[in-house]
């Protein structure tokens, strides 16, 4: 049975979405202040307008229900699904005024990519972009990555009742690290603050040593850190990570990518003083095996190639991109054109798979995710064991994810369902890209990159691409970030409410 939302539900949904949007208006103060400090008056005005309009929209929506309105589980799902759509829409306002985007759609694509921690970009003339606009682009990774919902919670909006926990679950982070959501949010921000400070200092010093000006060093350090730790992939220069020409930069950022793709439950366990969990965890194991196998494939492919067979090249062009793809970051030290020309076929395929598989759950990584792959592998093992065991015996299979858990058909079927949904979306996006006339390999690469929120690009993603394809990739980034079910819940709710409206007449 489908349960259609009531008018009261719609009010609550609008109310909380409005509060979320208001939070984004508050966040725009950071680039505004950056602009003022840097003496960038034009961009400062862009953000003044952006913050004002966003606050007005947010507060307008918040009027639809009283503060602290009751929030049901279904409503929470809908808010989550709408969150990325609505905040990317208002977040695009200042960027669209910057003069670096061909249209509002391009700016919206950029913020959708930013908030979903993808990293595909449609910016033009990035090397002349104002510091303030770059600050906002990178902040979208931080805001979207640490969970819009968690971010909103930290601002301590007075959500009463069970709504808050539902919001958290709807975002796909269904494990409770701490006894309650506020504690969990606080811990996530604590880990983030530690890594972001550390990364900013490390990369800032590296930049300083390379001859960058002081404030620029640390700004670039901060941006690269949040882009990697939140597995985003934006860069402040058009050359992305290639700009730095620095092995040290690449090593530090890969570490940050790994930290960003680690499940927050694992962070919590290690920081409690129990590092053994990393070795035992099914997800950590399957990710490690995954990265190792794909690195071997890339190494094999590049080793046989003409261009990248040196050991430095295998590491910096091969392994670096496996890590960047598997963690869902999408920083690249290659020009977009080089994926199809020069990079080996096997290497290309391995990067495709790395993007498709993705990182860990309860992190900012995208893709199918290591936990599901691990479960599916265990599931295969389980079925094989069953098939060769005597008919009367009961075969159980266990896996270790934080606890020893028996594998059930339900868990397995959930993992398989999400796996299938991802694969269908990867292929659908590739078909649409190919229909627009792009080569099939490139179209598949770009489609996977968008859906798995990675951000590596073969160059299809460009301001000149057809608007239909821009929208396709935006939907893919959105759906991938929500892991489909939340998005389907939104669509089902809309459809059922229309049906109800028609039934009454």
């Amino acid at each position, binding site marked *: 049975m489908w349960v259609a939302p009531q008018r009261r539900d719609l009010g609550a949904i609008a109310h909380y979405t409005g509060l979320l949007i*208001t939070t984004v*208006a508050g966040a725009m103060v950071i680039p505004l202040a950056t602009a003022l400090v840097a003496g960038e*008056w*034009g*961009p400062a*005005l*862009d953000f*003044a*307008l952006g*913050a*004002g*309009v*966003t*606050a*007005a929209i*947010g*507060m*307008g929506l*918040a*009027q639809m229900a*009283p*503060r*602290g309105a009751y929030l049901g589980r279904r409503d929470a799902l809908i808010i989550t699904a709408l969150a990325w759509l609505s905040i990317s829409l208002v977040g695009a306002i200042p960027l669209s*005024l910057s003069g670096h985007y061909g249209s509002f759609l391009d700016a919206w694509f950029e913020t959708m990519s930013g908030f979903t921690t993808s990293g595909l970009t449609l910016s*033009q*003339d990035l*090397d*002349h*972009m*104002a510091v303030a606009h770059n600050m906002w682009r990178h902040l979208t990774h931080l805001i979207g990555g640490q969970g819009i919902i968690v971010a909103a919670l930290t601002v301590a909006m007075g959500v009463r009742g069970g709504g808050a926990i539902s919001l958290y679950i709807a975002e796909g982070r269904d494990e409770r690290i701490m006894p309650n959501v506020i504690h969990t949010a606080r811990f996530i921000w604590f880990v983030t603050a530690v890594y972001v400070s550390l990364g900013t200092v490390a990369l800032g010093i590296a930049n300083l*040593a*390379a*001859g*960058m*000006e002081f404030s*620029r060093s640390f700004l670039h350090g901060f941006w690269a850190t949040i882009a990697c730790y939140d597995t985003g992939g934006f860069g402040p*220069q*058009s*050359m992305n990570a*290639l*700009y*730095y*020409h*620095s*092995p040290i930069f690449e090593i530090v950022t890969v570490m940050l990518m790994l930290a960003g793709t680690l499940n927050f439950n694992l962070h919590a366990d290690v920081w409690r003083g129990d590092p053994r969990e990393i070795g035992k965890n099914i997800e950590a194991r399957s990710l490690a095996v995954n990265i190792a196998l794909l690195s071997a494939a890339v190494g094999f492919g590049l080793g046989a190639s003409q*261009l*990248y067979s*040196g050991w*430095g*090249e295998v*590491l*910096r*062009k091969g392994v670096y991109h496996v890590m960047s793809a598997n963690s869902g970051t999408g920083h690249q*030290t*290659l*020009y977009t*054109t*080089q994926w199809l*020309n*020069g990079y080996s076929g096997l290497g290309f395929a391995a990067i495709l798979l790395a993007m498709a598989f993705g990182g860990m759950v309860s992190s900012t990584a995208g893709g199918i995710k290591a936990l599901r792959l691990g479960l599916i592998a265990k599931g295969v093992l389980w079925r094989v064991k069953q098939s060769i065991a005597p008919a009367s015996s009961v075969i159980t299979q266990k896996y270790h994810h934080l606890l020893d858990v028996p594998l059930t058909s339900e868990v397995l079927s959930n993992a398989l369902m999400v796996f299938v949904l991802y694969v269908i979306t990867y292929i659908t996006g590739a078909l649409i890209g190919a229909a627009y006339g792009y080569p099939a390999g490139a179209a598949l690469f770009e489609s996977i990159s968008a859906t798995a929120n990675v951000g590596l690009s073969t160059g299809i993603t460009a301001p000149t691409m057809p608007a239909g394809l821009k929208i396709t990739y935006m939907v893919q980034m959105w759906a991938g970030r929500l892991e489909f079910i939340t998005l389907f819940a939104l669509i089902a709710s809309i459809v059922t409410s229309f049906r109800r409206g028609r039934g009454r007449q």
Partner: protein
Amino acid sequence: MRRYGAIAVLALALALSPVSAFAAGTSAAGAVPAETDGPEIISMTSGLDGATIAFEGEVVSEALAGGDGHVWVNVLSDGTAIGVWMPVEMTDDLEVFGDWGNTGDVVRVVGILNEGCDQHGGDLDVHAVSLELVKRGSERENPYDLWKLGVGLAGLVLAGVGYRRMRRSEEGDLL
């Protein structure tokens, strides 16, 4: 130093001669630079890997340390930035690097293109042989529109009104 100067003079002389007649097909010789631009350099299909090339572009951002007395200078040519590796001395003439506030110096780079540079971890780069200033950079005009401030403030006022209304309605609930 002197060696670079000599090569630069030679390259310049060659460039000034009717290049177009033999620009194509001479890349193997290495002495006559093939005229190109950013998009062609990164196309990977130019057939210029290892050849001496020449292109024009704006220097952007800054010179970053490249080790061995060299620096990396990024040259933005037709919308594509190319990392050019050059001896520090070569940057003596450079004054303005492009950023939000400035259009950088426009230079003509002659150098060797490496589609996968063995020396630099496979980066696509150009090892400069000579660098010539074509046009001095200048400040960019970044006009600003005050109407944006008006819209922003109006939005803020509206938001403030909305916030007060919401608080009042909450107090009403309590009664």
